[in-house]
């Protein structure tokens, strides 16, 4: 690399390199590769670009990113598993603290108390929100957390059928299938009531049996409505010695009854909206919590931080707990293979929850619900639009149907886009029975004015005015 060292590689400076080679007793670094069979040693440069200065890198990456149009540049109503919420500045500041950012799994707890305590606090706050007793310190995302929950339920019950709602995010379903299949778990979908979207209790009863390991519901559902029969559904599961798994959007839990209060055994969900940006869908934050009995906790996947004391008993401190479930100890018998998780996203969520507190979480839920319902009301007044499709209470997302307007979701979307508005996700292929339907999302970041702009623009689009 010439006479300089690369800024990230201090010992690539030729003199230092020579000194170190001398210590080892070699003349060329290639001597350290002599044990690599000759035919595999790469003799050409990789076909990737030459190195750039920091300024050039910045310019290059920024110019590529500038080809996008972000949600900051257009009024956007997308959700469906990755939601736009405001991330307070202090959250960003804390997760950029390099002591946290550049550390790793706290294998040496004595120098890692900061991360360990922050993760313990995350776990504890998730427990408070969900009404559960134990939470792990993160899974990759909601979808993979669901996959792990299904496997955990199957291990706990020694049964291998999981009942899930027909109204589920297709990406979560696809993920669940990949996690479930090798464990011999079969997935059955329970129909919904066409009028309300609610899980059909009749269909649930017809499908549940002594083979059922777990019944899974989402609240709010993928299509945004609140599932109101959760007590009956959980009761049905328990009557059949099956576990009750509930998937949540935690921003709803300041106002919606926590799953722990309606009998959930395992709670999964997406923690991204609590202080983590969208980042084109990743990193996300898989929530995983369960009841506190030992039998369950021992089957949990992932890392769990516990409170303990120093050996002399003088001081409260934190370390990883129940590691004998994990891959580095139990290897092929581990409850999961997960190692690296989404710890820093969990810290962001801890900071977020601490900032909002009990009153703020309630307000967050209320604000979202008011604004989403306001949007729903305005859109439903537009000629040819049905919003929502289902007659049920809705939280922050809702379906918008265009069948009577004689316009496809795609056409409406393209016209809105020209007006600088990005409409909701097209779900008409996922739910053909719902016709031309999109899933719209409104959160606390959408102002009344912006919602009205959406309604006005949509009205113009449908009336053929633009």
């Amino acid at each position, binding site marked *: 690399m010439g006479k300089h060292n690369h800024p990230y590689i201090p010992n690539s400076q030729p003199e230092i390199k020579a000194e170190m080679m001398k210590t080892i007793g070699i003349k060329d670094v290639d001597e350290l590769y002599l044990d690599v069979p000759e035919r595999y040693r790469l003799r050409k440069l990789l076909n990737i670009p030459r190195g750039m200065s920091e300024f050039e890198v910045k310019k290059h990456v920024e110019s590529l990113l500038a080809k996008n149009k972000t949600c900051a540049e257009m009024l956007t109503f997308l959700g469906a598993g990755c939601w736009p919420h405001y991330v307070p500045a202090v959250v960003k500041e804390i997760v950029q603290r*390099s002591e946290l950012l550049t550390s790793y799994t706290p294998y040496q707890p004595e120098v890692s108390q900061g991360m360990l305590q922050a993760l313990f606090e995350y776990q504890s706050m998730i427990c408070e929100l969900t009404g559960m007793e134990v939470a792990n310190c993160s899974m990759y995302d909601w979808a993979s957390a669901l996959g792990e929950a299904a496997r955990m339920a199957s291990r706990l019950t020694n049964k291998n059928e999981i009942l899930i709602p027909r109204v589920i995010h297709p990406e979560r379903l696809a993920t669940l299938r990949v996690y479930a299949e090798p464990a011999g778990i079969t997935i059955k979908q329970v129909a919904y009531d066409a009028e309300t979207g609610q899980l059909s209790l009749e269909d649930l009863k017809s499908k549940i049996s002594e083979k059922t390991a777990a019944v899974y519901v989402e609240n709010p559902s993928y299509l945004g409505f609140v599932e109101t029969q959760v007590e009956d559904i959980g009761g049905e599961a328990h009557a059949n010695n099956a576990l009750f798994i509930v998937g949540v959007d935690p921003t709803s839990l300041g106002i919606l009854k926590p799953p722990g209060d309606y009998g959930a055994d395992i709670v999964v969900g997406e923690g991204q909206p609590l202080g983590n940006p969208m980042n084109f869908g990743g990193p996300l934050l898989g929530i995983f919590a369960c009841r506190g009995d030992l039998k369950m906790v021992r089957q949990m996947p992932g890392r769990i931080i516990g409170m303990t004391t120093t050996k002399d008993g003088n001081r409260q401190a934190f370390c990883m707990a129940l590691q004998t479930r994990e891959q580095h100890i139990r290897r092929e018998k581990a409850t999961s293979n997960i190692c690296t998780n989404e710890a820093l996203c969990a810290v962001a969520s801890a900071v977020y929850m601490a900032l909002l507190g009990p009153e703020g979480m309630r307000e967050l839920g209320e604000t979202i619900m008011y604004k989403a319902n306001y949007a729903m009301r305005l859109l439903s007044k537009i000629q040819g639009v049905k919003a929502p499709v289902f007659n049920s209470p809705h939280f922050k997302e809702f379906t918008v149907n265009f069948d009577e307007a004689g316009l496809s979701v795609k056409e409406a979307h393209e016209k809105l886009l020209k007006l600088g508005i990005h409409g909701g996700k097209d779900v008409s292929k996922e739910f053909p029975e719902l016709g031309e339907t999109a899933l719209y999302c409104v959160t606390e970041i959408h102002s009344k004015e912006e919602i009205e702009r959406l309604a006005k623009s949509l009205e113009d689009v449908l009336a053929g005015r633009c």
Partner: protein
Amino acid sequence: MVKQADWSEPVIFELGRKGRRGHILPAVEEGVKQVVGSVNTIIPENMQRKSKPKLPELSEVEVARHYIRLSQMNYGVDSGLYPLGSCTMKYNPKINESLANSKAMNMLHPYQDESTLQGILEILYRLERWLAEITGTYEVCLQPAAGAHGEFLGTSLIRAYHKFNGELEKRREIIVPDSAHGTNPASASMAGFNVVVVPSDKDGCVNIEALKEAVSERTAGLMLTNPNTLGIFEKNIEEIARIIHDAGGLLYYDGANLNAILGKVRPGDMGFDIVHMNIHKTFSTPHGGGGPGSGPVGVSEELAKFLPVPRVVFNGERYRLDYDRPHSIGKIRSFYGNVAVLLKAYAYILSLGNEGLREVAEISVLNANYVAEKLKGIKGLTLPYGDEVPRKHECVFSAKPLKRETGVSALDVAKRLLDYGLHAPTIYFPLIVDEALMIEPTETFEKEELDRFVEAMRKISEEAYKNPEVVLKAPHNTAVSRLDEVKASHPRTMILSWKMRLKKGGE
């Protein structure tokens, strides 16, 4: 000696006061409630939350102070050497952070119209091509969120491949060397395979005779780390590849750590069918105290059709997300991967370029061998599996003689290193080395810092022989002294949440 900050910081639930707030939300505007009515009339009675979540109540000031204090009780790569073997704790360039934390990255939604995503898709497309070039594979999938997630994808692909060929019923076994990382057997088992362990030879490499015996018509594949976890290159790789392929199995490469081989050797050229790589190791993205990472998977042409959807495709003009892959296994998570992490890797590869990446490999190997050479003379330490072969990115010492002669174990050495202001190596792994100290200096630490580490090790050895108590009771200078980890996991004493703490409070 150094002294770590100790704020004796209370748990956040013990801080604050009723009624305090740390963040104010935008108000619901005039008129909205009139239209909507009360939230309590929308949510049916049985679904309303009756009591508020018992979260702490603090001002922003207190929250900021609490977490800043906690951060000061944490050691990171920016604090000093972090020679945690197998984890590649290298410097995380700041420019990558600032790019990934920009609005231009943060504010992209995964379901935006493709016309608004041309830049990010181009970045992902190019990154896939570069990673394929680096690993010598045909196609790369960026979806996995971590190394183990990549492994699960890999073992799921092995499953898909044998199923496609109608052989899954028969091929039930995945072979894993005894030196493998714990995630390897765990991932094989998660994808429904039985794990067959093969022992390592006297030279630390896979025992070929044992491998031949382990292979059969039941073999689905082999998971191999090369350089292995001892830091030694599997010199018989050609024969290993032949044995597995002749038996109809697939070769899986655990490339969690490609540091030593960047631009030097490529898994694909060695015959591997599937490779996962850890972006949060080799490609310098921060570990975040345990994540997020990213674990892309590269595969041979034959396996590409099984990769998860969507794939980023380019028709020479526009980038697109392609879901039309009939043989795809489906998905292993939502959306496309940990994109903010991948963006940092993109910037990192650009910063280094082809020559720079080769330099990364060479200096990481130079540093590891330098440290190994300097540690060799220290009393109580040995370098198992011979010092004739050079190590690659890491070296594994044994503190067995030290323990026998002084009672000071690898764990004690690790704890004492913390007192010297250094992070400890990985200990007790790989399992085939007694009292293992697995040391990976990486290319990003200067000679002086490596010397400081060696000097600390020498002093600890001296202490162990002269005054073992000081090592046995270490650490002394950290925020807290040695912890009672048994208590944390014992059913009677375990406290996994604040709620449990309050419940068990009286005990």
